[in-house]
């Protein structure tokens, strides 16, 4: 039973981070129909910027984190303006490939600045553990969970009550109608990329704490976003959260209960992905208007 609780808790915590990353991904997809393969690199940038601010420039850590997240948002907006705007109306393959090219470029830039050797996580991140229901859980994981839930709540409120949030929902629903109502679609896209970059940066900081350092492996988490969003539904924000938690739990249980030499934790999300695509391609909460043959 202890083992079960242990696995469940770590699964939920990992799932919360996945959910955070998936949230940004879904926002971009909803508002601009772009599948963003560079989401993992946004994580990487957030983590390294925080590391640079706090450890290399020696800023007081809350200031460093805020500055890093703000810079990540700027990077997100720049990407949208410089790279994706010229490709409006191009076929899906072009948009996919441009984000793939972008991810390679971003990884190269990060690598050239910070190198390949893993850097230790900044001191301010918690490293101690607490005991819940007889299982040891890292405080950082609890933070991950709490932050994910908080961000989700903030975003829900943002979408329901703020002017920009409602505009984003309108664009996601029908671009033409939104344009004719005087909503600036360009502004909405910029906001979507900024929010995606911010959620990714927060996810990156939490991952840095969980992995105990910053290195290129943080970017690998970006691929796991696909099982999450397909399971939850590509255009559903609650789907991203629940999908993230389910994938996190499944990964944790598959890795913990099945023989470790099978390495099932890595592949289970992708098997789920294929099954979901075959059985229910719009996911748990997505709109049932996916392209079908």
């Amino acid at each position, binding site marked *: 039973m202890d083992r079960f609780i242990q696995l469940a808790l770590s699964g939920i915590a990992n799932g919360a981070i996945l959910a955070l990353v998936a949230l940004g991904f879904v926002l971009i997809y909803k508002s601009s129909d772009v599948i963003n393969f560079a989401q993992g690199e946004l994580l990487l940038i957030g983590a390294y910027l925080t590391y640079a601010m706090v450890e290399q420039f020696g800023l007081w850590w809350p200031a460093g984190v805020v500055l890093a997240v703000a810079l990540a948002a700027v990077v997100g907006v720049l990407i949208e303006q410089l790279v994706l705007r010229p490709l409006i109306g191009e076929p899906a393959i072009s948009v996919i490939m441009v984000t793939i090219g972008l991810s390679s470029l971003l990884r190269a830039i990060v690598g050239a600045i910070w190198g390949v050797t893993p850097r230790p996580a900044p001191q301010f991140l918690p490293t101690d553990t607490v005991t819940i229901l007889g299982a040891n859980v890292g405080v950082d994981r609890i933070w991950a969970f709490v932050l994910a839930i908080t961000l989700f709540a903030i975003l829900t409120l943002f979408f329901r009550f703020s002017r920009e949030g409602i505009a984003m929902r309108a664009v996601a629903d029908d671009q033409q109608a939104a344009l004719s109502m005087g909503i600036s679609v360009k502004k909405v896209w910029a906001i979507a990329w900024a929010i995606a970059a911010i959620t990714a940066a927060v996810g990156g900081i939490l991952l840095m704490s969980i992995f105990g350092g910053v290195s290129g492996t943080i970017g690998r988490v970006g691929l796991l976003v696909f099982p999450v969003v397909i399971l939850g539904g590509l255009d559903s924000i609650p789907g991203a959260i629940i999908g993230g938690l389910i994938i996190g739990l499944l990964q944790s249980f598959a890795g913990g209960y099945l023989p470790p030499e099978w390495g099932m934790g890595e592949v289970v999300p*992708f098997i789920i992905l294929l099954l979901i695509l075959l059985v229910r391609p719009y996911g748990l909460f997505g709109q049932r208007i996916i392209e079908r*043959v």
Partner: protein
Amino acid sequence: MGFAMQSGTFHTTYASDVSLRPYWPQRIRIALVLALALIFPWFADRYWLNLANTIAIFAIGAIGLNILVGYTGLISIGHGGFLAVGAYTAGLMAVHLGTPMWITIPVASFFTAAVGAFFGLPSLRLKGLYLAIATLASQEIIIWLLTHGKLLGIGESLSLPRASNNLFGLPMEWLGNNDFAFYWVCLVALILTVIFVSNLFRTRVGRAFVAIRDQDIAAQVIGVDLFRYKLLAFATSSFFAGLAGALTAHYRGVISWERFTIDTSILFLAMIIIGGLGSVSGSIYGAAFMTLLPALLSNLARSLSDVVPNINAYLPYMQQGAFGLAIVLFLIFEPEGIVKMWRNIKDYFRLWPFSY
């Protein structure tokens, strides 16, 4: 002839109407390229032969991917996985059965075609982005099978016995060193691939692929069996991926799964985007571009290493960054790729001096 190369299409016989290269300038260009390909290995050193072989193998794989993505319109991010299937099939046969390469390469290609058709099954229900994500999953699953393949009796890497590199009983050493000998194998494989695929799109099957790409519902209405032709597209595409993988296995002698990760799938996608979607020659240009770009950068770094210290430490990032930048810039400024740039140049001379 001069600059007045060709000012329109005018056929007087059926033979000229159906020929692949009906015009004399085209034929002369082909003859020149072929002559160059025949002369090249006698003057090139092993470094250049290695690059040429890499280009030829990549070109075969890229042509295969172009059948699927460029001609049939099904996006696949799993090509690297299919290359792995081809390479490991050939490798396992050579290691465990001692089969020579002239048997392993065709067997591996056909086996990969079957595996490709299997992983093409989601395409029956999905298209566009969803299919792309499904192929991403198949890529990850294939690599997982290879890395945890003790269940299947596959080690993490394979060393192929030298003796398996023989053609119809003749050992490859008989032709010369490894790079020189494989140059001819790769060249013949590439030429056969080019001829086959160029002709494929003049047949019923190839036309059906293009119809599916342009409008799948319309294609179905005029009698194209989507189920059959989509699987066939996956199988044909994977056949060439398997061919490229098997050639890689025998040429390199050692294979490991790192060579076939999602980065490889992306590399092949980049080749056909930069070369030109839906174009056989474009696939070759793209393969050449993607092979020569990093080689050029490392030569540049070597010659600058006296001026700029530490440049070698930055080389991998320069290569990766240039790769990403090339994709982004091509998509923004020339989405139709090198093949379009080449066509523009040809058009300029064709219409000269009245280029309007």
